């Protein structure tokens, strides 16, 4: 290989490194550092050690809100795992069957909501579920279930579940596409060999195809995890920064926003906000860590 001057490599790398380092990596580090400071009335920042974290995790004035948001966020994630990913798997499995007509068209249409802004999707569902408009109610009436209609988005017990399902509805395309791609990448001979042995389609799916796509299911899980623990737009556009009713839809993203910018009588604090962001970072890092060190390593043994 020819000798390439160092400065040439540097020129190729510099713009990307510079922008990424200054506007992504450094701010993240800076935020992690800022979490150890507090802000006085004059807006000056002083080193405060772990005081912010103590407040967030243990002082009821802060920690009630934080743990509520954390709990809701965990619930939000589990609903995605239990509803979004199994349905995504089912759709992908059907799409990848041999000789399904219109498979490409189905794919294109099913993926469409994923491309739209979460804000738009949130508003659309808010309209559909609105008791004022009554679309959801009249649709239920057509199948004789009108009396089951509730203003789901407005009730403390069901608002979070409803929002999670809206999010599931929107993002189903991602697990579907990723799993589909993994399924069609399985060598045809493997399936053919099993078929010749007399295995049913059902058995081929559970015992051959599913184990082979485990790494992809792992990837889908971690993508869902990072996306959910970083979510904000949907809750904010449907429920506002207060994530009502009575904070029942509050997740870490909205809690972070309120802590940082303040709301009602509470004054926003960049340093407290940074502490919340740091905790979110740790939550996401823990997930990614588990994925890389445990799941990925074990799953790779099954991969081909």
């Amino acid at each position, binding site marked *: *290989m020819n000798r390439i001057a*160092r400065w040439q490599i540097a*020129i*190729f*790398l510099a*713009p*990307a*490194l510079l*922008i*990424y380092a200054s*506007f*992504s*990596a*450094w*701010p*993240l580090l*800076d*935020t992690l550092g*800022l979490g150890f400071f507090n802000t006085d009335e004059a807006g000056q920042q002083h080193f405060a050690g772990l005081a912010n974290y103590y407040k967030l995790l243990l002082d009821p004035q802060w920690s009630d809100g934080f743990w509520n948001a954390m709990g809701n966020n965990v619930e939000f994630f589990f609903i995605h795992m239990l509803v979004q990913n199994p349905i995504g798997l089912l759709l992908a499995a*059907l*799409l990848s*069957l041999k000789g399904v007509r*219109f498979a490409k068209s*189905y794919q*294109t*249409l*099913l*993926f*469409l909501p994923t491309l*739209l*802004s*979460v*804000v*738009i999707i949130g*508003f*659309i*569902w808010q*309209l559909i579920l609105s008791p004022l*408009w009554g*679309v959801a109610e009249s649709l239920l009436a057509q199948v004789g279930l009108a009396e089951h209609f509730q203003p789901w988005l407005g009730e403390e017990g069901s608002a979070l579940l409803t929002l999670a399902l809206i999010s599931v*509805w929107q993002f*189903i395309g991602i697990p579907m*596409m*990723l799993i*589909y*791609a*993994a399924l069609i990448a399985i060598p045809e001979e493997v399936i053919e060999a099993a078929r010749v042995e007399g295995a049913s*389609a059902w058995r081929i799916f559970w015992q051959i195809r599913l184990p082979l796509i485990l790494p*992809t299911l792992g*990837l889908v899980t*971690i993508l869902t995890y990072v996306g959910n623990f*970083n979510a*904000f*737009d949907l809750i904010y556009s449907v429920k506002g920064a207060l994530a009502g009713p009575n904070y029942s839809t509050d997740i870490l993203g909205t809690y*972070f926003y309120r802590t*940082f910018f303040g709301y009602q009588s509470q004054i926003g604090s*960049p340093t407290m906000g*940074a502490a919340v*962001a740091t905790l*979110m970072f740790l939550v996401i890092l823990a997930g990614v860590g588990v994925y890389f060190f445990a799941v990925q390593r074990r799953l790779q043994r099954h991969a081909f």
Partner: protein
Amino acid sequence: MRQPVSHLAGSSFTHLVLAGYTLLSLFPLFLVLINAFKSRAGIFDAPLALPNGETFSTIGFEKVLGKAHFLGFFGNSLTVTVLSLVLILLFGAMAAWALSEYRFRGQRLILLFFAFGIMVPIRLGTVAILELMVKLELVNTLSALVLVYTAQGLPLAILILSEFIQQIPKELKEAARCDGVGEFTIFFQIILPLIRPAIATVAVFTMVPVWNDLWFPLILAPGEATQTITLGVQQFIGQYATDWNAVLASLSLAVLPVLVIYVFFSRQLIRGITAGAVK
């Protein structure tokens, strides 16, 4: 004889599920689009009906276009998205080339540094990003958004473009080098044209999160003059929540451009995801 029957049953089950779910995916959009073209009475009396001679109305669109600076929002989104894309693709391709073509000290470290950015959402650094933008006096400018989105998009772009650059046959580059062609010429005139399909793929799916984002426009550029379409629609609907015509029309206006783009690029996008996912 059992085989064909069960096959037929299996096939109708498949289509039942797929078509049913497709209907569920499209119905809400369809509902919004048809009602955007109705009068208030039409919207409430028969939400599921198509607009007809009696209920057809474009009053919602007139209100929206009159009250909100939709074209301005639109222009802002377009500017931010296009500029971010150009920077991500150009700088991303350059970095991907450097990282996959040359061997140098610190290479693994730089790769790891970028890989980190794929998994950790840039939003977590918001507090410091805002402080930085205040210092740089970039708050309420589109440049702030472009810089942040470029930083956000680079890691994944570099990863994907590297995969493609590595597949380019060695002979091509070596032949050019033997002829005394410089590294910059090789990159801009041989490599870039060769990875055009990969660039298009990366473009289509870095574009979507940038266009749709609410968080950074809300925090870095909430001023009237710099609102993007997503933020503009969000604020507009917050203000005119009870005006159903206007709400439905603004939602339709926000959906339409994405629909149009999707009609043209869906194949590219889906191929891109499918290809990217296998790796």
